[in-house]
Structures are given as C-alpha cells and as structure tokens.
C-alpha cells in the first residue's frame, strides 16, 4: 500500500506539470497579482478590524463627536442662555473661527457664544462648540485676551480632552456599537443619554488638571499663530488671580481648574523666551471696546 502511494506520488511529480491544462498554470505575473490582491484584502480586513477595535475602545467618528458636543452645549445653554446681542455673538464667532482656522482641526463646524451668566468661566464641547460667560467676557480688556480664552477652549476640542475624559469614566463595553446611526435603537439611545449626562456633569467636576495646563500652553501658541499677542492669556489669568477665589463667581472655575497662580507660573515658565518674537502681535483693544459697549 505504502509503495503504491509513493509510486503515484512520484508519477504525479514527474508528469503532473505536463498534464496540467493551461488554466491551472500560474505565470509569475499572475502569482504576483494574486499575492497583491491577497495582501490588499488582508489590509482591508485589518482596517475593518481596527474600526471595530477603535469602536470597542470608544473612538468615535467625527460625526459622532459633533453630535455629542451639540448635546452637551445644549445642556449648558439650558443652564444659561445666550446673551441677547447679535453683534457681540457675531464678533466672538469671528475671533474664534479665525483662531480655530489655525488649528489642526479647522474643518470642524466651529461655533462660539457668550452666555448670560455672572460666573467667570468658559466651556468647550467636542466637535467645536465653545461658550464664554458674560462674567468672564466683562473682565477682558482687549481682543487678544478674548483670543487667549477662546484658544484655551479650542485647544480642549483639538486635543479631544472631553472625549478622553468620558472614555475614562465609561466602561469599555459601553462604547461598543454606540453611534449616531444607532440612535433608532432604544438600548443604544439610552446609552447615548447616559453619555450626554456624564458629559454635562463633567462641566461641574472638571477635566484632568494636566489637560488644563496643556490647553494653556497650546492656547498661547494658537493665539500667536492667529496673529495675536500670546501674552494676553497671562494677563487674563493675572486678572482672575486678583479676584477672591472664594467669591461665588469663581466657584466652578476654581473647582475645575488648577490654582490660577500655578497656571500662571507653569505657563509663564514654559513660554519664557520662546514666544518673544511674537509678542508684538495684535491686541486690538479699539475694536474690542467698540463691541463691548453694546451688551
């Protein structure tokens, strides 16, 4: 039996190629083509796998990020509406949009607003939604200071700080299959609701303090890229630092940010000597004052 098998094997090895029909014959080019196709298929599979993997880890698409951000900012607007002054709102949008255009995520639908609150603060939501309170706006002296504040918030969005914070608080299973297109499903809709709630609470509890230092540092660079005097953000922090931290207007800001003196120190030292060439950037105090008269 064994001998017979060996004989057949030997026979087919010797005569096999000769009896093969042309359709079975593989030319070298065909082989290369097949290999290439297989490779591409593998790559595609890997890509899909990565997508599923990303999703499971909570990496959202930009569309989803914008959807979440819109919900979060609507929550904040529910707590404090926009100041009823179209000129002011447009002005803040122009300043913000111009700065955001200098960022790595200029394609986002950037929206800015001044909200009617005496609290001194500013908030950012994923996807490019940013609001500043009237309390903080009224402390500002020029457009460069406004630019510094908006740039800090823009940096939070560009670096996806809020999304990262939400990912940390929610368990991994939570993120599976979550997305805008899943909103039709009741279970997923409930998940989405939970996410928004946690997101809004984030505005009261605050981000990782390192994210705040990071946003300060990126803000001054962004402001300089937009043509503003980057040191204006230090001036804003100096002003805030001169206010009694126990005053009610600062309660949330103080609870959610590192001590202002520490921010000033860290930012000042990091900037030291690095942005001197850009210190002659614009302050635009005149334009700022013209707008600020109206509210």
């Amino acid at each position, binding site marked *: 039996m064994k001998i017979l098998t060996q004989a057949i094997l030997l026979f087919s090895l010797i005569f096999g190629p000769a009896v093969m029909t042309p359709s079975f014959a593989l030319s070298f080019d065909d082989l290369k083509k097949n290999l290439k196709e297989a490779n591409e298929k593998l790559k595609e599979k890997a890509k899909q796998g990565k997508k599923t993997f990303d999703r499971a880890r909570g990496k959202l698409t930009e569309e989803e990020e914008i959807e979440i951000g819109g919900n979060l*900012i*609507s*929550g*904040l*607007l*529910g*707590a*404090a*509406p*926009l100041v009823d002054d*179209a000129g002011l709102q*447009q002005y803040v*949008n*122009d300043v913000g*949009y*111009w700065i955001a*255009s*200098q960022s790595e995520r200029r394609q986002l*639908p*950037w929206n800015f607003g001044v*909200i009617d609150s*005496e*609290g001194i*603060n500013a908030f950012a939501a994923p996807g490019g939604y940013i609001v500043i309170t009237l309390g903080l706006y009224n402390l500002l002296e020029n457009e460069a200071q406004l630019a510094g504040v908006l740039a800090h918030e823009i940096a939070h969005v560009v670096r996806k700080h809020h999304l990262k914070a939400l990912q940390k608080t929610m368990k991994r299973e939570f993120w599976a299959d979550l997305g805008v297109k899943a909103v039709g499903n009741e279970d997923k809709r409930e998940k989405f609701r939970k996410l*928004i709630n946690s997101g*809004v609470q984030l505005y009261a509890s605050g981000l990782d303090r390192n*994210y705040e230092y990071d946003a300060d540092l990126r803000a*001054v*660079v962004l402001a*300089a*890229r*937009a*043509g*503003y005097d980057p*040191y204006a953000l*230090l001036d804003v922090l*100096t002003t805030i*630092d*001169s*206010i009694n*931290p*126990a005053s*009610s*207007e600062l309660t*949330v800001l103080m*609870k959610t940010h590192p*001590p202002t*003196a*520490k921010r000033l*120190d860290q930012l*000042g*030292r*990091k*900037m*030291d000597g690095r*942005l*001197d060439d850009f*210190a002659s950037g*614009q302050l*635009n105090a005149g334009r700022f004052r013209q707008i600020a008269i109206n509210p």
Partner: protein
Amino acid sequence: MLSILLVAPLRASQDGIVVRTAAVHAQASHGSTRIGQVTAGTTVSVFSRQGGWKEIFSEDNSIVGWVRSYQVRETTAAAPVSAEAESDSRGFLAGLASFSRKASSFFKSGKDNKSSGTATIGVRGLSEQEINNAQADFAEFEKMKRFASSTKRAGNFAKQGGLSATKVPDIPGKK
C-alpha cells in the same frame, strides 16, 4: 537715583509682588543689560507690560527696569496676596496687610482666601447644581449655530484687524 524716585510715583502703576527672584533688565529683552535683581516677596510698582516683560519699580533697592512678566504678579487695588506668595514667604505678608486697601468682597481680601468649597448655594451665575440639573435647550443651540462665522468672513475680519496667519513652532509640553 533721586530722579527715579521722583518720576516713579508719577507714572500710572499697579502694585505687584515679585513671585520669583528675578533679574532686572534695562530693556524688555533678554539681551539687554542686567541692572540688578529683585527677590521673591518684594513689593513693586508695575508700570506696563511689553510682550513677555513688565516694567517695574522696586522701592527696596531703588531700581527701575524690566523683568519677565511671570516673575511679577499684579495685586490690583485689593489685597495683594496670592496663594503661592503666601506659602513662599510669610514674613512680608504682615507688612502687606497694611498695604491692603478697601476692596469689595469680589476681590481677594487676604483673610478670606480659603473658600469654604461647598458654597454653591446662592451662587450667582452658573453653579454646579445648575449645570447638573440643566435641561438641554435645543432652540438656543439652533440660535447659536446661526451666528457661526465662515472662512471668508473670518478672513476679512482678520484682515481688518491687522491679523495674519503666522508660523509658530509648538512648545514642547508633557502631553
């Protein structure tokens, strides 16, 4: 020196505290002559800021010059105490207390620096509770979107304000 002492008080200034021992320069530039030093805790008058520099006058060593802006902190008309200065150097605080002028509770009073932390009741503006209890206002959100700028509009706005896109290298940070 006499002329400095005469001139200095005549110029508009703000009270400030040196928060880090700083080299005083003749001009607002690193390359300019170093004319002296002010130590942390010294009270100074701050005349102006120019880029990353502040022009100061120190009565202690009769010196007028420029220091890095983060080395000095303005203390406004209110009490000049900052958390950092408080922990750095207690000795001069007693002296500062006499400097303290009348200030509304809005500004630091020096005595009441530590927040009770739980004072969310009666908070003006956005309180923690208000944020947590807020009902989303989608109509207001739609309104907000209507004020959005555009590439063209923001470009014109920048031009009118003398702003131009500038290449600025990143500053290396931890994250």
